């Protein structure tokens, strides 16, 4: 059986520092702190749960839940991000694909795949040398309807089971989630940040009430945290993989200039 040696979640974007230099620095330092913690765990591989931004998926051919199975990935390069290839882990990814499908749930392989900023910003902070094999796992919240928090939770439960039951002895896995917190994308509310909602969401995780996230619903998340806030489904999936583990807040800053609430947490893994 493998081991989940670490679990972390953080927002997956950066923005212009102008006018909010102090907050930007706090966010950047928090993201780097998570990176240091991940590297210190010396994982054999990283599973990164996120939503794509329609750079790899099409509205006309929905793939709500998908996994990258390639041996290596070249970033899409949005936001001027570096194009250096990073390693995948096809054995883990294909094994999880089969594990999920055998249980009657929906998970599709996505190939070709050029991960966008949703993967690459956190990854390039956590593993700037691209040494850790990384499996991108997508819960794509760009569709309407999008996967529900209950579906995300169930996917995370299966991910945890897969690592603990089906992976090689002593394999060290870190799971990360990216996206959120509250933000509105391409709509009149863009620029709004609901810090109260973000705080409440983070508090659930800090208090180890992870299972409560399964009962969230997309309509209320969209209403209170925005269409971009739906990305917290990645965090819900991560919590589902480690349902009894509380988290410690590493950083939180409402960043209206970036049009998003920026947060990061590290879970206590027993």
């Amino acid at each position, binding site marked *: 059986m493998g081991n989940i040696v670490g679990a972390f979640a953080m927002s997956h974007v*950066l*923005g212009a520092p102008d006018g909010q230099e102090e907050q930007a620095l706090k966010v950047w330092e928090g993201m780097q702190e998570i990176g240091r913690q991940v590297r210190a765990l010396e994982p054999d591989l990283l599973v990164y749960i996120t939503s794509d931004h329609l750079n790899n998926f099409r509205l*006309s051919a929905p793939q709500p839940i998908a996994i990258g199975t390639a041996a290596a990935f070249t970033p899409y390069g949005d936001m001027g991000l570096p194009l250096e290839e990073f390693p995948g882990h096809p054995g883990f990814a294909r094994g999880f694909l089969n594990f999920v499908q055998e249980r009657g749930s929906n998970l599709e392989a996505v190939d070709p795949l050029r991960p966008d900023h949703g993967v690459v910003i956190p990854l390039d902070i956590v593993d700037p040398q691209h040494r850790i094999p990384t499996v991108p796992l997508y819960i794509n919240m760009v569709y309407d309807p999008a996967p529900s928090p209950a579906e995300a939770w169930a996917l995370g439960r299966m991910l945890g089971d897969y690592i603990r039951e089906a992976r090689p002895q002593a394999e060290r896995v870190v799971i990360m989630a990216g996206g959120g917190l509250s933000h*509105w994308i391409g709509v009149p509310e863009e620029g709004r940040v609901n810090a109260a909602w973000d705080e409440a969401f983070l508090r659930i995780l800090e208090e180890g009430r992870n299972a409560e996230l399964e009962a969230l619903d997309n309509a209320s998340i969209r209403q209170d945290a925005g269409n971009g806030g739906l990305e917290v489904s990645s965090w819900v999936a991560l919590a589902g993989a480690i349902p009894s583990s509380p988290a410690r807040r590493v950083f939180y800053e409402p960043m209206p200039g970036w049009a998003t609430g920026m947060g990061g947490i590290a879970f206590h893994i027993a």
Partner: protein
Amino acid sequence: MGAAPPGVHAMIEHLIAVPQDRALIRSSPETLFERFGVPKDVWPVLRTGGRDDLAALRIQGNLVIKWLIWSGRPTVAVFPISYYFDRR
């Protein structure tokens, strides 16, 4: 959520996949509009409209942002990623 005008999502998704065609947004947007069958009544909004105008057309939010960036009308400030990444 209702549907965006015909062709608009397909046009923007094409520009995601074929970045070299993004130059047409500024040089010859009609070429794109005609290729993807975008109704003429929404051409002015696509050429000069803002975020809220595009959202009112029911264009998906992520695609609104991309269209505006490629059109030179980004909704948030542009910055070099090196501002952060050079500090790693």
